[in-house]
Structures are given as structure tokens and as C-alpha cells.
């Protein structure tokens, strides 16, 4: 009888934990996106492939797809190659130093793509810093057109996405046992060989994860190519915007979305085949068994690594060896390279600060005079103030919703074992995997049907969908480190389940909960794609208002906005770090 009484509870609990997020995703993601995709093959209630014929009839769309792939590949390559030494150096630093180096990467990571793209417009402009520098050093006589070119787009994209690459690679490198390359040294390997044959293969999962994250984000980008690119650097998502905003051609927008989605899913499928998707959430994959050691591929790889190793060793032999140096790869050239990359990452946003206080030089470099005029303009503008308020409200609401639906799901995914769990994980993470633009267009269509366009509530729901996966990921990582025996101990001491949560589980998880909340808030606060369609005029959010202003004209007021946002983000990171430390000190 007792087992009968317990039986229903055994399945009710997981359902209650998983249901909210699943429902949210079904209603706000699966249904709208499904509708959009269906619109591409249905016209007036009949099945048709007309939209696809139109898509492939002209070479325009195929060309744009090719350009998108080309830009994304270059961005991925550059971001990973330049980011690798940064992640490598940071992962090998002592704890105290590590925090301060990571801060610069995080600051760049959390600074809005909009701010950073705007900064590049200013820097690459005819009277911008870069042109001034090139002229002053005599490398050119007259300022040249740096903007609206492939180079500008690539600089902007790499700048936007390198922090993501660094942070992803860093999370893998942190877990590589540092005694392994040391062991290789004692076994007779020179430093270069030890790196290429031992460390590098072990860091490959990080490189792969970083590359796929960058590539998939890049392929759905529109901010950087719209602001920094010319007519030859139009990317696929810009076409979708055009179809929706100018011609309201939902079916065709759906067809382009299908094309984009297929490319993204194909990339993920290949990744899953090679490495296993579970490696992305930090769980060790049970499939990461290296290929058989006799395969041709293995021997080729081995030979390449061997060559790279001896080449590096020959290069290192040219430098006099210092007595101090015990860790290979942390030499002066390496450090200077990493500093240069961090400089590249941080400077554009920092340059906005002096420009925002400039008197009458506009956005030209160097700033002339000092005034608070732009700030006064900003605070007097009802458009900007409304937008700021709305962003805060929506961000707060979305973060609360995302916590409410995401945290139980994380508990479910970490604490229970059942078949189909990895499927559930893939489903939960799908808002990150599916290009944001497709979600946004689908939601816009859905919202327009039920009258949620332009409302804060609709936007909150939309942002909850994209913020919840981050909450789930963060909370899963936190929960994996949580010792469940503490709960059992509390219960053995007489605490009821609710009391256990209230007095033991949540206080210990407080820092983790707080950082997921901040993560979710920042995701919503910075979100442009959904807001692009779902808001407008007095209902704009900050990013939307920023976007509207920037696409109309480049004004110093935007530098003031950038500075405010930059300071706000820096403060958020600082608070998050404080909280983390406080929880560790306990």
C-alpha cells in the first residue's frame, strides 16, 4: 500500500519541474517559429514551393548566403586564433591576477554589440582615431575610406564575438591538468613539442565549442554588417528584416529562415557527430574517445602536430632562454600579444567616454573642449528616458520569469535520471541554437495575431524565451557542484522539504541564483532582435532606440548613451564578482 501511495508522486514532481519551461517554449517558440516555417510552403491555404523557387531563381539570395558564410567563417577563424592565446594565458594565471584579466574580457563580452559597432563607426570614420593615427605616422597622406567595407565588417564581427570564443575556450582550458605538459617535459619533449602534442589536443574540445558558438552567432548577425558594411557585405538576416519591415512578405521571410535554419542545424549536426553536444554544457562527454590510433587521419594529425612542435622549438631556440622561465609559452612576446588583443577588445568602448564629454568637435578625434551638453540632451529626451525605463522593467520582468521557469528545469535536468534527458536539454537550449532572427520574426507574426505587439508584457515573454536557456545552463553548472548530502542531512535533522529549500539549499545556491538572474537580466537588457519588431516609437527599449538613432544619424548623444551603458555593465560585473567572492568566503 505504501508503494502505491508513493507511486504518483514519483512522476508528478519531474512533470511539475519541467512543465513551465516546456509550456513556455511550446507556446512562444515552437508554435510561432513553426507557423513562420509553414508560411513558406503555404499560400492561400494550399501547399506551394513558389517561395523557394523565387529564392533560388535569382542568384542574389544564394550570393548573400555565400557572403554570410564567408564572413562567418573568417570571423570564426580570426576570433578563435586570436582568442586562443588569451584564453591560454588567462587559464595559467594565479587566481588574483586571473580575476582582473578576465574582467576585461567580461566587460567586452557584456558591452552591447550596438555600442561596440557604434564605436567602430566613430573610430573608422574619416576623422576617426584610426585615420588620424595612420596620417600622423605617415602611413597615408589623406584620410581613407575605412568604413562600409569587408575589412570593417570583419573587424567589427571579430571584436564582437572574440570574447565569446575566449570564454568558451577558457572553460575547457581551466580543466586541463597543468602537470601533463610538465610531465611531457620530463619525458624529453621540448616546450613547443609538449604544447602541440599534449596541451593542444586536450584543448581541442574548447576550440571546437568556441568555434561553433562564434560561427552560429555570426551567421545570424545583422548589427555589425548593417552598421559597418556596404552593399557587398549584406548578410542573410538583413534580408529577413527587409522582407518583414518593408514588404511584409511573411512567406518569403519564412523561406529565407528555413535556409538559415538548415545551415545552422547542419553545423550543429556535424559538431554533435564529431564531439557530442553535451560537451557544450560542461559535462564530460562519454563519446570523446579519440579515433583509433592506427587510422590514416590519426597519423596525418600526428605528423602535423609533430611538425608544428619542432617548428615551434626551432623558433624558441632563436630566443635566449631566461633562467627564470619555467612555464613554456608565458614569455614576453606571448604576453604582449595577449595585451594587444585585450587592448583591441577594450579600447573602442573606452574611447566613447572622452568623446561623450567633448565640447564642439562632434565625434572627431581628438575631442575638443569639455561639456556635459550631450548628457543634458540625453536626460531631457523623453524618448531615451522612456526607453531606459522600459528596458529596466522588461529586463527585470524577463529575468524573474526566466528564473521561475528555468531553475526548476535545471533541478530536473541535474537531479534526475531518465531516458530522453538529452533531448529535453537540446529542446531547452534551442532558443540559443536557433538564430535569434527566426525567433523574432515568428514571434512578431504571432504577436500581431494576438495583439501583443508594442506591449511590455509581450516583450517580457519573448525575452524570457531567450534568457531561460542561460538560466538553465548557469543553474545546471551550479547544481552539479552542490553536495546533495547536505539536503539529506537537513532532512535527517527533521527539516521538511520546503524548510530544506528555505534554510539549506537556497542560501547555499544564493550566489548562483543571483548570477543567473544577472545573466538573464543582461540578456534581455541587451536584446535587440525581438525588440526590433515587437516595439517602436514610445514603446522602444534602449537597444531599439539606440538602433533607430544610429541608423538615422551618428550623434554625440549616442556616445553619452554608450558611456552610461558601459558604466552600468561594468557595475553589474563588479557586483556579480563581489557576490561570488562573498559566497566563496563563507
Amino acid at each position: 500500500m505504501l508503494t502505491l501511495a508513493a507511486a504518483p508522486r514519483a512522476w508528478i514532481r519531474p512533470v511539475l519541474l519541467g512543465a513551465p519551461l516546456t509550456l513556455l517554449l511550446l507556446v512562444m517558440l515552437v508554435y510561432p517559429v513553426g507557423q513562420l516555417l509553414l508560411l513558406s510552403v503555404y499560400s492561400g491555404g494550399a501547399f506551394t514551393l513558389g517561395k523557394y523557387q523565387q529564392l533560388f531563381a535569382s542568384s542574389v539570395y544564394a550570393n548573400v548566403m555565400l557572403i554570410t558564410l564567408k564572413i562567418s567563417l573568417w570571423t570564426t577563424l580570426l576570433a578563435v586564433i586570436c582568442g586562443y592565446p588569451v584564453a591560454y594565458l588567462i587559464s595559467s594565471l594565479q587566481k588574483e591576477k586571473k580575476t582582473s584579466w578576465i574582467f576585461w574580457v567580461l566587460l567586452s563580452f557584456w558591452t552591447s554589440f550596438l555600442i561596440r559597432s557604434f564605436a567602430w563607426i566613430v573610430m573608422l570614420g574619416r576623422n576617426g582615431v584610426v585615420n588620424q593615427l595612420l596620417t600622423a605616422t605617415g602611413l597615408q597622406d589623406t584620410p581613407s575610406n575605412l568604413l562600409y567595407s569587408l575589412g570593417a565588417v570583419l573587424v567589427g564581427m571579430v571584436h564582437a564575438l572574440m570574447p565569446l570564443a575566449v570564454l568558451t575556450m577558457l572553460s575547457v582550458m581551466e580543466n586541463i591538468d597543468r602537470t601533463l605538459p610538465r610531465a611531457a617535459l620530463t619525458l624529453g619533449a621540448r616546450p613547443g613539442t609538449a604544447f602541440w602534442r599534449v596541451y593542444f589536443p586536450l584543448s581541442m574540445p574548447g576550440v571546437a565549442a568556441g568555434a561553433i558558438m562564434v560561427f552560429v552567432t555570426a551567421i545570424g548577425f545583422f548589427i555589425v554588417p548593417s552598421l559597418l558594411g556596404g552593399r557587398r557585405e549584406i548578410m542573410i538576416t538583413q534580408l529577413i528584416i527587409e522582407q518583414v519591415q518593408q514588404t511584409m512578405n511573411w512567406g518569403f521571410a519564412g523561406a529565407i529562415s528555413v535556409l538559415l535554419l538548415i545551415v545552422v542545424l547542419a553545423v550543429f549536426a556535424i559538431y554533435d557527430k564529431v564531439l557530442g553536444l553535451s560537451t557544450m554544457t560542461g559535462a564530460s562527454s562519454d563519446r570523446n574517445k579519440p579515433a583509433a590510433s592506427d587510422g590514416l587521419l590519426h597519423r596525418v594529425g600526428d605528423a602535423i602536430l609533430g611538425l608544428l612542435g619542432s617548428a615551434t622549438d626551432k623558433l624558441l631556440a632563436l630566443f635566449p632562454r631566461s633562467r627564470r622561465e619555467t612555464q613554456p609559452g608565458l614569455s614576453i612576446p606571448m604576453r604582449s600579444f595577449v595585451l594587444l588583443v585585450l587592448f583591441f577588445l577594450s579600447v573602442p568602448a573606452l574611447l566613447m567616454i572622452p568623446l561623450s564629454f567633448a565640447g564642439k568637435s562632434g565625434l572627431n578625434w581628438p575631442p575638443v573642449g569639455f561639456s556635459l551638453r550631450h548628457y543634458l540632451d540625453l536626460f531631457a529626451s523623453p524618448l531615451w528616458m522612456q526607453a531606459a525605463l522600459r528596458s529596466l522593467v522588461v529586463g527585470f520582468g524577463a529575468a524573474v520569469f526566466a528564473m521561475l521557469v528555468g531553475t526548476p528545469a535545471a533541478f530536473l535536468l541535474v537531479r534526475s535520471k531518465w531516458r530522453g534527458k538529452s533531448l529535453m536539454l537540446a529542446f531547452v537550449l534551442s532558443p540559443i541554437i536557433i538564430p535569434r532572427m527566426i525567433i523574432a520574426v515568428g514571434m512578431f507574426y504571432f504577436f500581431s495575431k494576438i495583439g501583443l505587439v508594442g506591449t511590455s508584457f509581450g516583450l517580457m515573454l519573448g525575452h524570457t524565451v531567450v534568457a531561460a536557456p542561460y538560466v538553465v545552463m548557469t543553474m545546471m553548472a551550479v547544481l552539479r557542484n552542490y553536495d546533495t548530502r547536505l539536503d539529506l542531512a537537513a532532512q535527517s535533522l527533521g527539516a521538511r522539504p520546503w524548510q530544506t529549500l528555505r534554510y539549506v539549499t537556497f542560501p547555499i545556491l544564493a550566489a548562483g541564483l543571483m548570477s543567473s538572474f544577472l545573466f538573464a537580466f543582461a540578456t534581455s537588457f541587451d536584446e535587440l532582435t525581438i525588440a526590433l519588431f515587437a516595439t517602436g516609437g514610445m514603446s522602444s527599449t534602449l537597444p531599439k532606440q539606440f538602433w533607430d538613432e544610429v541608423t538615422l544619424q551618428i550623434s554625440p548623444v549616442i556616445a553619452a548613451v554608450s558611456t552610461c551603458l558601459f558604466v552600468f555593465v561594468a557595475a553589474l560585473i563588479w557586483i556579480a564578482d563581489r557576490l561570488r567572492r562573498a559566497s566563496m568566503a563563507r
Partner: protein
Amino acid sequence: MPSSNLKISGLCKLYGDFVALAPTDLDVAQGEFLTLLGPSGSGKTTLLSLIAGLTVPDGGQMLINGVDVTYGAPYERDIGMVFQNYALFPHMTIEDNIAFPLKMRKMDHATTRRRAAEALEMVRLPQLGKRFPRELSGGQQQRIALARCLVYRPSIILMDEPLGALDKKLRDQMQLEIKRIHRELGTTIVYVTHDQEEAMTMSDRICLMNGGKIEQLGTPSDLYFRPRSLFVADFLGESNLFEGIVAHVDGDSVEVDLVHGHTRIGAKSNGAALSAGSRVRVMVRPQNLSLYAGTAEGEGLRGKVLDSMITGSLTKLYVESAGAEPIVVSYPTAWPSDRYAVGQGVRLQWHPADAVAVPE
């Protein structure tokens, strides 16, 4: 004495103000098994990684086979190292792990294969070549780490607490295994451990370290029976340390007045410079104490049995005596095991040759 394999003079290492290793001299003979023993933070691991070349010294000199390698890179030294967590390369098979050092030495393919197979044979795991490290048990990984060192026949093998992660039974088995391989190959081994029993079992000589300095260097029985300092007497094995004041010195023998018990006893001074009036501790091992029932006349200390316990092959008795800490006595366990009742009066006696006076 065979030729010296490793010669260290004045080697030291500082981290800021912290002295990780004070200037140290050490000679290790060809084929010797030397153990660096000490509590954590005593400098034993620092010394080992200085020998390996993984840490750069702040001064002094080090010769391996007569070649100055003080500032040489690890790969230029003729050494092998077994790491605490084994440091097997997780992305390579066992065979590739073992072949790695041979590959680094540009050995041809056939020889590499043959030597790798031999090394696996040596550690008695010939069938595991195609597996990956994580598929092996801790004990097997340990053997593979050893095989990876043996395969290129370095003249010195360094081992950093290699058995620390294994359970007691496996550890005993591996100790014998390492001893066997050491005997068969005649390689010099420098071994780090904090387990005194392990050090005693395996070593030709033990180098006992404390606070970044060598406390005493000698054979296991030297250190056990002839400690030269209170630290050594206390660290190695169980001991009774009686407080006392030197009354009389006669060459190697001293007479000591015990602070508790008002008794004058004989002891060995073991070369320590003691003079009448200096405070000392007299160390007597539990198994060197003779126990007599009753407190009737005769020499020695008198006391009362506090507790008695069987620890296995030895039975331990704790005796309370004149205000001092309880005295431990041990003797082989025999039936009937309850020869002494708690509260019973007993008399303790020992031979002066089994007592060592160490300066306090």
C-alpha cells in the same frame, strides 16, 4: 661507496620571503633508493621538482652524472618522473603514452614498439596497450606511469607520492612491485612520501625534511633508533619522550634525571653535544619497555594501567605515571590477551642502550 649519481650542493629556493628550501647538500649514489620524507610544506616536493628541472633554483649547484644541470631544462636531464596523479596523457592510448618519450628521442618505429612492449611486460600489464588511461584502474595507471619512465632507461627516476591515491592493500602490493623493479634495473630512485611506514619499508636511506631543511639523513634503522633531534624522534614511529636534565656525560653515554618520577636513568647521546644541566628528552620506543606486574621493589618507573588495546599483532598498553603524559608500551599480542587489568599497578624498565637523549 659506488659513484655518485646526483650531487647537490647549496641548492636553495625562495618564494618571496618564504624559504621553500634552505641551502641543501645531498649526494645520491648510483642505484640507491633514497626517500624524501617529511610533513607537508617541509620542502620535499620543492627539492624533487628542483631535481626534475620543473622549478628553477635561486642558488647552489646540481650535478647529474657529473654534468652541471642546475639551470638545465627538464628535457636535457637524464631523469624520469612519476607524478602524484600519474599524469598519463588522456588523449593517447597506453601504448602511445609509453612510446612518447622514445618518440621524443627520435627512436625508430620498430625499436619503439619493442621497447614499449618490454616496458609493459616489466609492469605485468602486456595486454593493455590499446586502452586509454581512463579505462584503467588507479593501480594499473600507476604501473603504466612507471612503465613510461622505465622505457627510456633514465639514470634517475623521481617519484612524487606515487602511491598516495591507492588504498592500503594495493599500496603494499605496489611497494613490493617498485622494490622488485628497482632491484632488477638498478636505477637510482628518489622517492617522495609523507608516509613514514612506506619510507621505512622501501628506502636504502631516508632524508627526513622539516621546514625547508634536512633534519637527518640516514638508513631507516638509523633514523628510527638513533634520532638526532626531537623532531626526528617524534616524527618516525611511536615513541615515549621523557623530559629530563642531563646529570652526567661520559663519552657517548649520559645519565639523565627525569623531571617526572625522580629517577636517574642511562641513555645514549648519539653524538649530540650535551653537557650536564642541559634539558633533554629521552626517547624510548614502546616495544623496548619491559613491563612487570606490581609496584614492588626494583628499578624503573612506576604507574597504573590506563587502557589496553589490541591493534593487531601488537597489544598496546597506556600507563599513567607521575604527572607525565601517558606512557605507551607494546608487546606481541598473545592469548590470553587481558593480562593487565585497568587500574593495575605496573613497573616499567628499559635497557640504557635503547634510550636516546635528544636536545630539547
